[in-house]
């Protein structure tokens, strides 16, 4: 959750900085949005893999066990419910962005809404998992 939040904020700031410097115009150039999204997906996948590897190494050293915890039916149910909640968040973001367009908001707001709803969806996904693990499912 923290990784997703940090990644999005840092990447968002970098992109905004370049937009301010005039390297690309995110209010008009939708091709630039496509490139930004693709780079963001690639970067976030690579960084998440690296963090996962580092986490497993630290975990193996701390617990002195190389076994990866197996996923049982409760884990699967929790993951499923968390994914459902995040799907609701992302869909709501999409619908809100469409409503915004209908109300005359600039088109580039739809992309900002995508990023925001994607981030909220991820936070909700991880938050739901923590909630269900602690409070029961």
């Amino acid at each position, binding site marked *: 959750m923290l990784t997703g939040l940090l990644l999005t904020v840092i990447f968002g700031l970098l992109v905004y900085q370049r937009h301010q410097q005039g390297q690309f115009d995110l209010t008009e150039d939708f091709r630039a949005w496509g490139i930004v999204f693709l780079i963001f997906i690639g970067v976030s996948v690579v960084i998440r893999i690296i963090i996962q590897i580092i986490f497993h190494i630290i975990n193996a050293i701390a617990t002195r066990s190389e076994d990866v915890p197996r996923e*049982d039916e409760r884990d699967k149910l929790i993951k499923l419910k968390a994914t459902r909640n995040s799907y609701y968040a992302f869909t709501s973001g999409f619908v809100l962005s469409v409503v915004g367009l209908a109300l005359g908001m600039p088109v580039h707001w739809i992309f900002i809404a995508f990023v925001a709803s994607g981030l909220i969806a991820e936070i909700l996904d991880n938050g739901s998992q923590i909630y269900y693990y602690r409070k029961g499912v």
Partner: protein
Amino acid sequence: MARKSIITGKESEMSKSSIQNNIRKLRFLKGEMTQQELADLVQVSRQTIVAIEKGNYSPSLELAFRFAHVFKTPLEEVFTYKADNTK
């Protein structure tokens, strides 16, 4: 919904399910089998055993039968259903 603990006899506020279980008692009768040992036998994590014992998770039918198989006892002796008439 409060539930009486089989071992201690105390009222438990943790139970959120109308399915109650005797797993703690059955583990005790199996020579104080640990949660990890039971988890390995029924192929789930120890955390899932903890959640089931607390009443925070109702297992699937297949897992319930696995418990009964491990304890060599009928399913009704492991899990019991108590209808909530307040709903």
